[in-house]
Each structure stands twice: as C-alpha cells, then as structure tokens.
C-alpha cells in the first residue's frame, strides 16, 4: 500500500483543488483522505455521501463540581494555563483555556474536579462521485487535538484500503509545520509540495521542506500560478534542484480553477484541455515515483 501526501506550508496555493483533480483522475481505485481537518474543503468538490459518520472524542477538559468545593485554591495555584478563575466566590474552569493536563484534579483534596472527554469532531466514510472512498472529518471549532483527528482519518483510510484491497491512498494535508502536518506526514511514501512563486510561497516551502527532511521522505513539487512571477519560479526551481526534489509540474495562473470550484467540479472535469493535460501528466509523474 502506498500513501501520497500533498502539503503546502502556505495556504491558498491550490493544494486542495489540485489534489481533488488527482483524485478524480485516479477514480474508484483510490482511497482519498482529507487530513486538512481544521478547514476541510475537499468535500465541496468530491460530493461525498457521508454514509458513515462517527463522533470523535479526545483530550480532557476539567470541570469543578461546585457542591463539594471547599475553595482551597489549590487548583488555581497549580494551573499554568490561566484556566481557573474565581467568579463570585466560586472556582470556575474556562474550557477555552484548559489544556487538559489534569493537574488540578490530581491536587484537589475533595476530588471535586472531574475531567470530561470532549467531542472534538466527527469523521466520515463516504463514497464520492468517482465511486472511490473518501475518509474525511470535521474538527469542532476551537478544538485542540487536530493532530489526533488527522491520525484517526489516516488510520481509517489505511484500514479501508486493506479491507477493500486497494493499493493507493491520497492524502490532502494541512497547512503549516505543526502537529496536524506532522501527523499527516507519518507513513507517507511520497510527498507532493504545492507552492506558488511568491516571496511567501518560497519561504514556506523552505520551512516545510526542512520538516520533510527530518522524516527522510522523498518529495516532488508542483509550482502553481508559475507565470505570476517568473523570477521567483526560477528561484524555486533552483531550490528544488539543490535539494533533490523533483519538479512535477508548473501550472499557469488560471481563474478557471475557481470557476470549476464554483460549479463543484475539479478542473479536469471542465473543458480546460491545457490544464487537464498538465495535471494528467503530473499525476503520471507522481505514480512513476512510487512504483
């Protein structure tokens, strides 16, 4: 089983639109995993049926049962996250600030602090418009533990791939370099970096590449909107050469990506022959890399 993970460092480079186009080309054989759980958009293009939906619980949030509280203040003393305050003489936990470390409950002499395991999101198993399978999720707003939900999505995708005897998982990762990205990358066979030729595109590519190097993963890069700044495109290509990253494709700036999106379509489902050809070629290059 192979896992291709698409990430971008910087947001808005076209990662999801491009991943969705690949998923469309791969058809029913593919298991698609949307690991951008914080702002998941893939479902807008792939028409999932949400056939199975499950709640996801993770972490802890402290709650003080007022009846037994003797107002000793120990919880307030030990909390490093400003999550406990005294309101009208009562000790109260602010769930937004609570990190879920459980320290307060451990020192409470009357055992009056309980730790609730909150529902932090939902995950879904769907059949999508290609008749392929997609595992996706929705993280509750403000929730912690996005990395754990990403791990859940990936594990479910692997399980279903095994059950259905499928060979390929395509993962839409999240932006940044923090825990959800690290979680997206675990177990990857090949990483596709989507970037754009801008000062920030190059900067974020360099940082996210350091992360990939830490994991020793082979990688390729797609430069989207490459004609917006030819000089920066050249600099990106020089960076790729230096670091043995394959240049998978250069795609032109084209607002028809957005047009397709407003129709709920991937770009390869439209009449855009030039972009379709480039994306087909890119998908073939990626597949050659993992075989």
């Amino acid at each position, binding site marked *: 089983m192979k896992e291709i993970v698409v990430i971008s460092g910087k947001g808005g480079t076209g990662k999801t639109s491009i991943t969705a186009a690949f998923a469309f080309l791969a058809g029913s054989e593919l298991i698609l995993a949307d690991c951008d759980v914080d702002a998941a958009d893939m479902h807008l293009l792939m028409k999932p049926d949400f056939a199975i939906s499950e709640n996801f619980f993770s972490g802890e949030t402290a709650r003080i049962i007022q009846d037994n509280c003797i107002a000793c203040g120990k919880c307030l003393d030990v909390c490093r996250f400003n999550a406990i305050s005294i309101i009208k003489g009562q000790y109260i936990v602010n769930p937004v600030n609570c990190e879920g*470390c459980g320290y307060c409950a451990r020192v409470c002499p009357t055992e009056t602090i309980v730790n609730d395991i909150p529902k932090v999101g939902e995950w879904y198993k769907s059949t999508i418009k290609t008749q392929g399978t997609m595992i996706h999720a929705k993280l509750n707003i*403000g929730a912690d533990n996005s990395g754990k939900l990403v791990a859940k999505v990936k594990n479910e995708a692997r399980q279903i791939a095994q059950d259905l005897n499928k060979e390929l998982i395509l993962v839409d990762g999240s932006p940044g370099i923090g825990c959800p990205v690290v979680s997206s990358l675990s177990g990857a066979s090949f990483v596709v970096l989507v970037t754009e030729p801008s000062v*920030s595109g190059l900067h974020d590519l360099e940082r996210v590449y350091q992360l990939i190097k830490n994991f020793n993963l082979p990688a390729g890069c797609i430069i989207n909107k490459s004609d917006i700044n030819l000089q920066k495109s050249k600099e990106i290509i020089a960076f790729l050469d230096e670091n043995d990253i394959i240049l998978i494709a250069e795609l032109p700036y084209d607002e028809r990506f957005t047009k397709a999106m407003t129709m709920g379509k991937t770009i390869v489902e439209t009449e855009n022959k030039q972009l379709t050809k480039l994306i087909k070629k890119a998908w073939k290059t990626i597949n050659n890399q993992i075989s």
Partner: protein
Amino acid sequence: MRISIASGKGGTGKTTLSTNLSAFLAEGSEVVLADLDVEEPNSGLFIRGDLISTEHKYKMVPEWKEDACTLCGLCQKVCNFNAVIRLANQILVFPQLCHGCYACSELCPTESLPMIPQKMGQLSLYKRGNLNFVESRLDVGEEQAVPLISQTIDYIDQHFPEAKYKIFDAPPGTSCPVIEATKDSDFVILITEPTPFGLHDLKLAVETIRSLNKPFGIVINRDGLGNDDVIEYCTKQNISILAKIPNSRKIAELYSQGELLYHQIPEMAQALKEIENYLSKLVIQELA
C-alpha cells in the same frame, strides 16, 4: 486597541491585509504588528524594517535527574500527553509532546524532574517609522504553536502598552492556535474570498469568533472572483462587510514580489481608509 486578522482558509490575504493595514495606520499613529502565524511567518517579507532586537523563546520542559529517582512511575501516570515514559530503569522525556503543565515535575516525590527551559523559537523586533513589527518564528520540528503565540502577546503587552493599534496576523484555521491569537482581542477582522472554499471556511471562522463573543467584521479579498454567495451570507447573518479588495493579477504579481500594495493600487488604499474609519469609531466607543 487589539485587532486580530484571521481567516478560516489559508491564502485568503491575512498577511496582505495585516501588513498593508499596519503600514497604512502607522502613517498617522503608533502601530505594533505581530506575526502570530508562527509556523509560517510571512509578514516580515513585506515589512522589512530595521532589526532592533532578537531573542530566543523558551518553553519549560522536565529533565530527568536519575540520582534520587526511585522509578516510582508517578510522572508517567500524571502526564496526559505521553511526554514522560518510564522504560525499564530510566525515565524518558519527549519535549515536543510536553505541554508544560509542571504536573510531573511538582508531584515527583524525589524532585527528579526539574523544569528546564528549551528553545522553541525566536522573537525579533523590527522598526519602520511608526510601525513596530514583532515576528515570532517557531523552530521547525516544534509541534505546538500556542506557547510561542502566548509569549509573543505577553511581549507586546509589556513593550507596547501605549500603541494605538496592535494588529495580530493570526494563523489560519479554527483550532487552538487561532483561539490563542484572537481570544484577548478587542476586534477581529475576518478576511475571505468569494469562492465556495472561502465561504465554507468563513462560516467556520464566524462560528469560532462568535463562540469567543468577539465583535468582528469581514473584508472580502479578490472581489469579483467566484460568486455572490459570501455577500448573501453576510447580509443574511447581519455581518458588516468593512471593505472589498478587488481581484487583480497586478495585485498577485506585486504580492509575489513582497511589495506593499496601497501606494500602487488605489482600490487598496480606499479599502484601508474604510477599515481605518471603522476602527477609529471603535476606538472612540472604547474611550467613551
């Protein structure tokens, strides 16, 4: 006044708006801009002021001292993040998993896990006229952005209590780092683009900001691209649209070179003026 600039979706123009608005406001007032997108800080690529100072930022993590340790295993039991593990005859600490709650350290009966500082990133202060720019940069390999965001906000409160505008360029998304970057602000500007992805993620961002009970308004970037669904949504939800920035290839090109826009794009200057007017009314209300 603290203003956070956030968006659900990445790449909708948070940094463009933060940097341009800060530079624009700094033409008349003292402004501090903080790049709180510590995983991928980009504001500095557009501001390029003079470097005033730079300092390492640390988080506190436990370090095992084996001398007095009885290997009782309490540390492992109290750690909710699997950052401390007892393995045969030693205690292993995984600093990147540690949330710095001190439970293992303070509950250890033999004081064998003192907390020590570990570098997680770097904070730099730049100056460009009236504009003070604070950039925090998380070390690659560090997984948690929240402690660095929180320390950066503390730094600003200590060093710039008097600044008229404190602008926070927040990270994308709706999870813990965004909450950290917006929860103590007086006003939140959500920037979006008029596309299905933009609208979908805007709704999540609105839900997030409403859950924090913050006043907020919307700026539409790349106006003219996509469709009218974002505007319809704002009207229905009674959300103020503060300004619109047009969709233009010229803007994308200037952005790609790291240029500020408002000197060259009159529509951008106009949008910033509208936002400034809105904000100054809020400042007056705050004083009243």
